[in-house]
């Protein structure tokens, strides 16, 4: 039995966000490519988006009064956890096809797991969020799994 994770909290596993649709603009690809020091011409020119561009494309766009004092937006998919200090996180991405300028993409995020581990300095809470991105024909574009650790 988990010490920190109540059954109410664990009941959030499987929760899904509303699908978000975004149009891939050449200008946004160019800005992202320049900011990340890309070297491939097709990325810098904005024809094709480099890997990881989806992080920018689907970053939550919130209004100023929705930001906390440290400038972070609240992730509505997540429940309130008994531990709140975020530690290192990890990402696992499978790329199924490239993202091109003009693509209309849809992302759906699911809270797929919450679990607890004993760290050397106390308990840790892990949670996983999977984001599936598909194109207009419903074909998979990429799958991203984020794991975050709270202490």
């Amino acid at each position, binding site marked *: 039995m988990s010490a920190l994770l109540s059954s109410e909290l664990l009941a959030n596993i499987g929760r899904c966000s509303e699908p978000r649709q975004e149009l891939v603009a050449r200008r*946004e690809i160019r*800005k*992202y490519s*320049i*900011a*990340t*020091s*890309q*070297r*491939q011409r097709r990325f810098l020119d904005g024809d094709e988006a*480099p*890997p*990881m561009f989806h*992080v*920018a494309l689907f*970053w*939550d*766009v919130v209004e100023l009064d929705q*930001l906390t004092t*440290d*400038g*972070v*937006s609240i992730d509505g998919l997540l429940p309130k956890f008994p531990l709140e200090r975020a530690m*290192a*996180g*990890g*990402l*696992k*991405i*499978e*790329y199924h096809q*490239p993202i091109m300028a003009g693509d209309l993409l849809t992302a759906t995020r699911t809270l797929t797991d919450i679990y607890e581990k004993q760290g050397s300095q106390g308990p840790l809470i892990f949670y996983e969020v999977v984001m599936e991105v598909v194109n207009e024909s419903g074909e998979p574009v990429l799958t991203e799994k984020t*794991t975050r650790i709270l202490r």
Partner: protein
Amino acid sequence: MATTRFASIKVGDVLPERSFTPNNVQLMMYNAALWNAHRIHFDHPYATGVEGYPGLVIAGPLLGDWLNQCVVDWVGDDGVLAAIEYSNRKASYIDETLRSGGRVLALRPELGEVELEVSIRNEADEVIVPGIAIARFHQVNSS
């Protein structure tokens, strides 16, 4: 059948290293491209005084992007980055010089795939972002 490029790759091959010295202009542009307003990336008094960091913190996914690029630039036009997995283990700060690099761990000729170990190291030569990636090389049609 795999490409001639794939046939030339061996376990232990080293990917070219690249160094990055992100300054606050680049960090500002990156977070603006995301719409990320987290103060630890641009508000120096907040990052140091309130959060106790030694400086402005480089955004974790920017380091992740450089791992992706390490593979993409090595593969070139001969294939694609099929998958990558990494974790941000240690923070880094404005004006530190970081290095990306990697090496070939395994070959899967039947799939034209190469498994790679990739990393970002800091000036102390600590691996701050370890990762594993799969590059898939285009198949040559033998028919």
